[in-house]
Every structure is written in structure tokens, then in C-alpha cells.
């Protein structure tokens, strides 16, 4: 047969344009991540195809396409160093799809491109799974589905309206089934194969070192560091010290983590029942986790170091949830001595002579470590120190320069110089970095901790209480600890937008949005094997395994499809009465209410005669209606004027 199958025919111009547009929508979120030359390359190929679709010109020769493909693959390999893994693989995929455009002639090719378009959408989720992206992705999915419907339509070009309605209906009906599959499809706890780790770009957060200016830079970011759900009441803000890296080594300018860590956590004598909370940590590519000062027990598969840092087995590369218990009142490592104590007293051999001299004076005058601590805090309070997010740069002797010249600093300046003074005065001390405070979201009942809440404080070892937290920043700017960065900073300081105080409804809006995003993170993005098991045990499966999930999956999907089938096929075999018939039946119902029901098998003429005999006053109307009906239904095909008359007559008929 010569007639080509519909799949071999060409897509219409409108369909081609629509396909290109939808593929453009699907690839758009990738563009900012791609090198500029690749964006230009892909865009050029797409526009070229568009031009060819509208002029009907011939597609480029195969040889040219091969050259393009070679160039694209080589460029990708050069730029990413690999053709695999998310970045390189996705870039290569985009290049190949763009090349496929210039090789697509028939509807069959276009259908394949639509499938590739779905695949493009899923690759976008490798980078962004936020609510706005999910909403955005609905657009290309709907567009591609409508295209499939248009291509499946055999009877000529159906336009775009009908396929769009079909696609919308299909997707809407698929949603409940999707929900069942999403909930009960067994999830694997681990990836199937090793996912290559890619250096995350632009992730801000604490680092394992601290130099002057590091934390004040973080204070410019309102990105969320983590969110916390407390079991029970949240402690007051002044107690919310989120412990991160503990920095013991000092080279005169930079504090860094101690390399040698002893076996197991230091001794801890809790003095309260403890606070339990669940942290949802945004990925920060480092191994440490954050816990309230001081963590007594970490979650499984984590480690507590001798200096009470909570550390995960692997760097945190995806949003991670963990539950920990901390004690706000404690005695930490009361019997502390030896090598560890020496490390907590180490200072570079030279530098910052004025600070050393001041510390030695205190040591001589006071002798008692606790008194020295109080003296130092008194020094910060009384000597005109100023808390600012924009501290001036420090010279070659940073501690001296800060303590005696600039006296303007952010938390890292205070913590660093305080610990320096303590060590110089013979009191074991170290710097602790982390976050302080957080914003309670009343809508979700959880705490939001942002990068701008980054903080540094000091720990000194005292007899008999052991390691004791001292926050020299609190001596200078108590509001920082009591009420957060926003209220501590002087007006005119460069606070990030979301950290600024006040804001009324705008603040309400962003809190509502954050609550939504948090719910999304917890229940959609964080839905995995563990939550799945919890859900199953909640609905009554004692020991949920893949079998119970498969059973639920099949039963749920089957029930939904069955319901859908019933809904869709309901009345499909039924015939739609013609308008005249509908009007006539209404007329019969009216008479039936007056006790003159039409008998089975009674023709309209006989019926009309019977009614006319029983109710002579209605005879004229009844006869007119019956005759019109007979004429309409059995006479020449539909006269719209007669139908209109029948409608009026039946409408005004009162038995």
C-alpha cells in the first residue's frame, strides 16, 4: 500500500513549533549551568530547526551533523573532563537532543523527541527539586503530553486545543495513581551504583578554619543552614548554641581543627534531662553535623569526637535528617589533663606581645582561672568595644590590633582574641564555631537557622565544672545572643533581607513559604525508605517489607484504576436521546405526575388521544406537542424551527 502510516508523515508546522518550544522549556533551567558556548550551540541548532520547519527546507546532510556531533562531544568532554556523571552526562544529553532535532523528519522522530523531552525534565531535578521547579516542570510535561496526543490523532491536524484538553485530563486522572505509586513503591536505601561526587559550587557555610572576617562574610547570607524540630518546648534563644567545628590550633591568625583526636567522646555528666530535637541539615559538603551544646547522644552512624563534635560518616551531600539529644547543663570532662590540656594552652611562640603582657598581668594579679575569665569579659565590656558586621581589616598582629586599636569586630574577633588571652594567662581554652539562635517559625513550629546566624564562641576549662562555654560577644552585644543578629546590628549594617527585623505581613508570608518549603522537604523530597516504613507501620503493618508494599501498591493502583475505569466508561454504551425525545419525555413526565402516565407500548398518537379524552381542556396542547414530536422524530431530518416550537410548547405546558 502506498499510503504512508501516520507515523511516517511529517508533523505540521504548528506541531514542529510546539515541539521546539516545549523542548526549549524543558532545557531552559539547565542553561545557566552550561558553558556559554554550549548554550549558543544548542540555541543555534534549535533556531535552525525552527527555520527549516517553516521554510520546508531540506535537513542538513549527515556528514555535517556528524561534524557537529563530534564538536559537541569533544567540547563537553573538554569542559567537564568526563561524559558521565550528572554534569557532563546531562550536558552531553542536551547536545545530542539538539542534534537529534536536525535529524528529525517524521512524526515517529518527533515522538521520540517528546520522550527525550520527558527525560530532560527529570535531569533538571538533579539540580533543583524545589516547589517552584516542580510547578515549572508541569509546563513542559503538559506540553509534551499534548504533543503525543496530537501525534496519536490520526484524523488530520487536530489543532492544539483538543490534545491539550486530552493531556490535562490524562495527567489529572494519573495524579491519584501517581500518589499511590509514590507512597508504596519500594525505595532502596542506597544508590544502585556509586554516585560520583561533584564539587558543589557556591555552597556557603562554616569551614574547618576561622580567620578574621570569615564569619562576618557568612552573615551576609540568608540561606538556610538547617531547620530544627524540638520535641517539646524549644529552649530560650540565649541557650541555642549549635555546636559545629571546634578549633584548637592557632597560628597567630587562623584557627583550625586539631588533627589528632583521642578515642571516643569526652566524659560528660549531664545535669538535666536533656532536649531531644530533629535537625534537617541542608547539604554543606562537610562531615560535621550540628547539635545543641552539648550533645549527649548522637544518632546512629555518627560519631562524637573528644571535643564533643558530632560527625557523620561521610560528607553531607544531600539534605539529611537526624535526631539528637543534648544537655544544656552539664559538666564536661571534669578530669582533663595531659596532652589534651597542653594542646588547649598552645600559642605560637611569638607575636601579639601586648595581649600576652595583658594576660600575664591578669594571671599575676588574680591567679584564679574563673576570675581571669571574668576580668577578660569585664575588659570587653568596659573598654569601648563595638559589635559590627563590617569590621576593619587587621594588621600583622591581629589580636593586638583588635584589642588595642580597632576594637570593632564580629564574633570571630571576640572569640579569637578571648581564647588567645586565656591561653596566654594559662587557662585552657578553645574556639567553638557553629550557629547561635535561629528564627522560630510559628506556622510550622520549627526553628530556622540561617547562615547569617553563624557564630563563634569560646570554651574554657575550669575547675570543677570542666569545659565551660564563654561567649565574649555577649559581653559586648548581649542582644546578639538574646534576640539574634538583626537586633544586635546597628542600623545601616548590611543585613541580609530575610534577617531584617519587622516586616509585618511580608515576614508572615516568608515564614509561611518557609513552612511550606520545609513540609515539602520533609514529606516529598525526604520521603524515602525510612518514612515509607514508618507510614506502613502506622497503617497497621507490623513488619513492613517489600511484600506488603507490593501488595498495597497493586491493591491501591488496581482500586484507583478500577474506579477510574468505572467513571470513564460509565454511560459510554448509552445513547444520548435526541433533543426532541428529551422534550417529549419531559412532557410525558409532567402528565405522569397528574396520573396520566404513558403506558408501555403506547405510541404518542394513541397516548395523545387518551390524554385528550381524559383532559379535554388540554387536548389542543397535547395534540400539538405530539404531532410536532412525531414530525420531528420521524419526519424529514431536523427542522430547527420545529424543535424550537416544541421546546416552547413543552416549556409552557402545565398539566
Amino acid at each position: 500500500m502506498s499510503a504512508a502510516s501516520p507515523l511516517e508523515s511529517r508533523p505540521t508546522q504548528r506541531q514542529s513549533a510546539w515541539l521546539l518550544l516545549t523542548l526549549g522549556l524543558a532545557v531552559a533551567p539547565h542553561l545557566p549551568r552550561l558553558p556559554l558556548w554550549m548554550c549558543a550551540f544548542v540555541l543555534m541548532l534549535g533556531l535552525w530547526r525552527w527555520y527549516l520547519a517553516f521554510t520546508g527546507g531540506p535537513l542538513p546532510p549527515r556528514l555535517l551533523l556528524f561534524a557537529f556531533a563530534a564538536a559537541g562531544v569533544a567540547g563537553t568532554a573538554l569542559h567537564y573532563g568526563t561524559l558521565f556523571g550528572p554534569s557532563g552526562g546531562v550536558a552531553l544529553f542536551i547536545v545530542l537532543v539538539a542534534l537529534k532535532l536536525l535529524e528529525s523528519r517524521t512524526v515517529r522522530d518527533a515522538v521520540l523527541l517528546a520522550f527525550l523531552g520527558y527525560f530532560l525534565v527529570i535531569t533538571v531535578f538533579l539540580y533543583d527539586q524545589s516547589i517552584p521547579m516542580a510547578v515549572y516542570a508541569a509546563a513542559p510535561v503538559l506540553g509534551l503530553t499534548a504533543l503525543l496526543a496530537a501525534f496519536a490523532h490520526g484524523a488530520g491536524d487536530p489543532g492544539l486545543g483538543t490534545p491539550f484538553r486530552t493531556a490535562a485530563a490524562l495527567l489529572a486522572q494519573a495524579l491519584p495513581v501517581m500518589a499511590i505509586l509514590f507512597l508504596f513503591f519500594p525505595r532502596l536505601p542506597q544508590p544502585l551504583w556509586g554516585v560520583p561526587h561533584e564539587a558543589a559550587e557556591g555552597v556557603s557555610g562554616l569551614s574547618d578554619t576561622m580567620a578574621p572576617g570569615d564569619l562576618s562574610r557568612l552573615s551576609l547570607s540568608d540561606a538556610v543552614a538547617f531547620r530544627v524540630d524540638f520535641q517539646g518546648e524549644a529552649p530560650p534563644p540565649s541557650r541555642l548554641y549549635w555546636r559545629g567545628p571546634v578549633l584548637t590550633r592557632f597560628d597567630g591568625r587562623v584557627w583550625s581543627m586539631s588533627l589528632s583526636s583521642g578515642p571516643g567522646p569526652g566524659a560528660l555528666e549531664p545535669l538535666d534531662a536533656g532536649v531531644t530535637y530533629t535537625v534537617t541539615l541542608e547539604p554543606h559538603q562537610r562531615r560535621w553535623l550540628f547539635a545543641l551544646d552539648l550533645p549527649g547522644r548522637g544518632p546512629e552512624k555518627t560519631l562524637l569526637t573528644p571535643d564533643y563534635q558530632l560527625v557523620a560518616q561521610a560528607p553531607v551531600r544531600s539534605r539529611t535528617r537526624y535526631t539528637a539529644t543534648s544537655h544544656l547543663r552539664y559538666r564536661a570532662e571534669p578530669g582533663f589533663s595531659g596532652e589534651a590540656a597542653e594542646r588547649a594552652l598552645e600559642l605560637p611562640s611569638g607575636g601579639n606581645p601586648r595581649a600576652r603582657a595583658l594576660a600575664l598581668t591578669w594571671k599575676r594579679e588574680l591567679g584564679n582561672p574563673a576570675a581571669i575569665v571574668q576580668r577578660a569579659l569585664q575588659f570587653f565590656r568596659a573598654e569601648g568595644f563595638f559589635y559590627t558586621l563590617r569590621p576593619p581589616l587587621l594588621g600583622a598582629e591581629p589580636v593586638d590590633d583588635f584589642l588595642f586599636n580597632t576594637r570593632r569586630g564580629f564574633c570571630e574577633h571576640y572569640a579569637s582574641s578571648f581564647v588567645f588571652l586565656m591561653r596566654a594567662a594559662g587557662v585552657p581554652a578553645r574556639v567553638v564555631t557553629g550557629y547561635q539562635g535561629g528564627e522560630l517559625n510559628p506556622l510550622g513550629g520549627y526553628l530556622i537557622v540561617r547562615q547569617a546566624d553563624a557564630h563563634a564562641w569560646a570554651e574554657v576549662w575550669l575547675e570543677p565544672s570542666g569545659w565551660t562555654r564563654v561567649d565574649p560577644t555577649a559581653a559586648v552585644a548581649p542582644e546578639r545572643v538574646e534576640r539574634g543578629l538583626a537586633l544586635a546590628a546597628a542600623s545601616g549594617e548590611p543585613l541580609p533581607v530575610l534577617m531584617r527585623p519587622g516586616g509585618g505581613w511580608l515576614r508572615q508570608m516568608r515564614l509561611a513559604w518557609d513552612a511550606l518549603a520545609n513540609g515539602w522537604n520533609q514529606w516529598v523530597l525526604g520521603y524515602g525508605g525510612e518514612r515509607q516504613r514508618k507510614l506502613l507501620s502506622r497503617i497497621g503493618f507490623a513488619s513492613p517489607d517489600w511484600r506488603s508494599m507490593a501488595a498495597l501498591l497493586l491493591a491501591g493502583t488496581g482500586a484507583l484504576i478500577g474506579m477510574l475505569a468505572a467513571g470513564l466508561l460509565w454511560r459510554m454504551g448509552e445513547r444520548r436521546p435526541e433533543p426532541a425525545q428529551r422534550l417529549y419525555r419531559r412532557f410525558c413526565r409532567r402528565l405522569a405526575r397528574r396520573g396520566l402516565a404513558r403506558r408501555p407500548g403506547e405510541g404518542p398518537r394513541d397516548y395523545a388521544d387518551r390524554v385528550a379524552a381524559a383532559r379535554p381542556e388540554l387536548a389542543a396542547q397535547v395534540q400539538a406537542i405530539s404531532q410536532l414530536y412525531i414530525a420531528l422524530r420521524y419526519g424529514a431530518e431536523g427542522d430547527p424551527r420545529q424543535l424550537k416550537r416544541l421546546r416552547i410548547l413543552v416549556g409552557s405546558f402545565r398539566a
Partner: protein
Amino acid sequence: MRSPAANAWETGPWTARIRAGLGGTARRAGHLPGSESSGRDGARVVLTRRRIFILPTRQGLVFAGMLLLMLIGATNYQLSLGFALTFLLGAMGMVSILHAFRTLAGLEVSVGKTAPAFAGEAVTFGIDLTNRSPRPRLSVALSHPGSPTVHCDLPPGQTRTLTVSMTATRRGWLRLQRLTVHTRYPLGLFRAWAPVELKLQCLVYPRPEDIRLPPPAALHPMEGGRDLLGAGEDFAGLRDYRPGDSPRHIAWKAAAQERGTLTKQFSGNAAEEVWLDWERLAGLDTEARLSRLARWVLECDVLGIPYGLRLPGATRPPALTPEHRRACLKALALFGLGDPVRPDPPPRP
């Protein structure tokens, strides 16, 4: 469903008149739910669930493969939205099965108009597809062996006539073969189809002989054998073209003026009669005789000469009406094919 009363009335005393008047009423007659065919035998088929088959298309398999890849990717990269998209597309595929099924379920397929044809010509069968449901059925396709697939959309409550054609190779009854009603809508991932056997046959007349020998005018020696094809007759008017008319009689001028294809009719001077006699064609084989007789029937009809047909076992007295022409051609078509009266009810005109 139509009420029982309406059904009863349909078969009531004055139904016959209505049927006769409309011709199509039988097709409107009610059917019982689940019945596979009703109306006249095999003239109408309603596609019930058991008749409809569904299988994935090649595209559907490719789509499934893509979903599998997406699932593996989502598992490996722990992409919740990847799972969501994969499941959404999978669920959409499943739902599309229901939609494909719905497009065909309850569809009514009935025989439409079919006109007799000559052997060697294409026979066109009209097939009516009727959508009795309140929902549209989109992209319903009809296939018949040897005929290009045809598609249509069926709005609620409407009937569309699709035609399939076959080349008639020999005279006699040409039966419609098994039809396939199918659809790839809504996504092309699945194809739903239903085989349909309609009892529809078309009468194929013998192929008229190409060489135009004059009919045996020798019956009228007085005339000395008129040259039926020559000039000399009077132009009597135009009538619609019928298959088998000689191209020489087509009114090309009228065709050029787009007045349709018309055939010139001529009237002889006298209304003499011609007998087309099987016996006089001795020496030719059966098919060649029938071919020549068919040609003569057409010629006489065009020229307006009353003709009679004498076949072994059947004689038709001379006449010059369309019914006569039909009857003669039918007799020729069925000659020697056993029972000259067709065993099945005739196709509706």
C-alpha cells in the same frame, strides 16, 4: 437507554411506513446492552468489551523503556521528584489504556451505502460509525485489507460514514472482509482494536468488453444494421454518469464547466428493440460472452434502444429503464454462480 415504551412503539403498527420512508430507522432501533449485533443480520455491530483488544505499540515499548531508565536514575540519585515524574508518566500510560478502550467501547459499526461496480473497478463500501454516547470519540480508525486506513472523530450522538475500497477482480458477489476498528488515541502508546465482521456484499457486474462491437441489430433486417456507434442519432439529453458508460459519450464540455460528469444520451429515430442473446455468441467462452453482453447492455442503455436479454434459463423482455438495466447486469453478474437469487438479504441501497 431508550425506554421500553419507545422500543415497543418502534415495532408498533405504523413502524413499517416509517421504515419504508426513512430507510435508516432500522439503524436507530434499540439494542440490548451486551448484545453484539442486532438490527438485520450482521448489518450492525456494537463493540462490546469482549471484542476490544489492547496492546502496547512500539512507541509504548520505547516509552516503557524510558520510564525504566528514569526509575533507575531516580533511585540512584534519590530524586523524589524524579520518582514523582516517573510515576506520573507511568500512571498516565495506564490511564491512556482506559481512554483507548473508551474510544471503542460501545461504538456502533453498521453497513452504509454500497453501489454495484464492474469487475476491474474499485468497489467502495460505506461503513457507518455511530457514537451513541454523550462523549466524543476521537481518532477512530477503520482498516480493511487492501484499503488505506481511514480516520474520523465522532462527536456525541453522531454518525460518520467512512469508506473502504477493494478492487473487484471478478463478477459476482464481493463480500466485505473483516474490518478492524482501531485507535491509537490518546497517546499512541497503546493500540486498541476490535475486529468487526459485517455482512455487507456488493454486486460486481461483469467487466464490459473493451472492444465495442455493435449489438446484434440483425433482429431487424429492415434496418440493415444500424451503426450504433456512428453519428446519425439525435442527441436526446444528458444524464448522470454511471460506471461503465463509454468515455465517448461523456459530455466533456459539461465536465469542463464543472457541472459534474454527465453522459450524453442519444435517441434513435425509431424505438426498435434489440435482443441481446447468449446463444448468438457461440464460440466465445462464458466470461467473454458475459463481458460482451454487459457492454451491449450499457451501449443500448446509453443510446436509448430498448433491449432484451436472453440467457440460458432467464429471459428479460426488452425495456429501457434503470431497473431493467440493473436487473440485466445482475443476471449477467450472477450467471452460472449457482443460485441466481442471492442467499443473503440484499444490501440496503
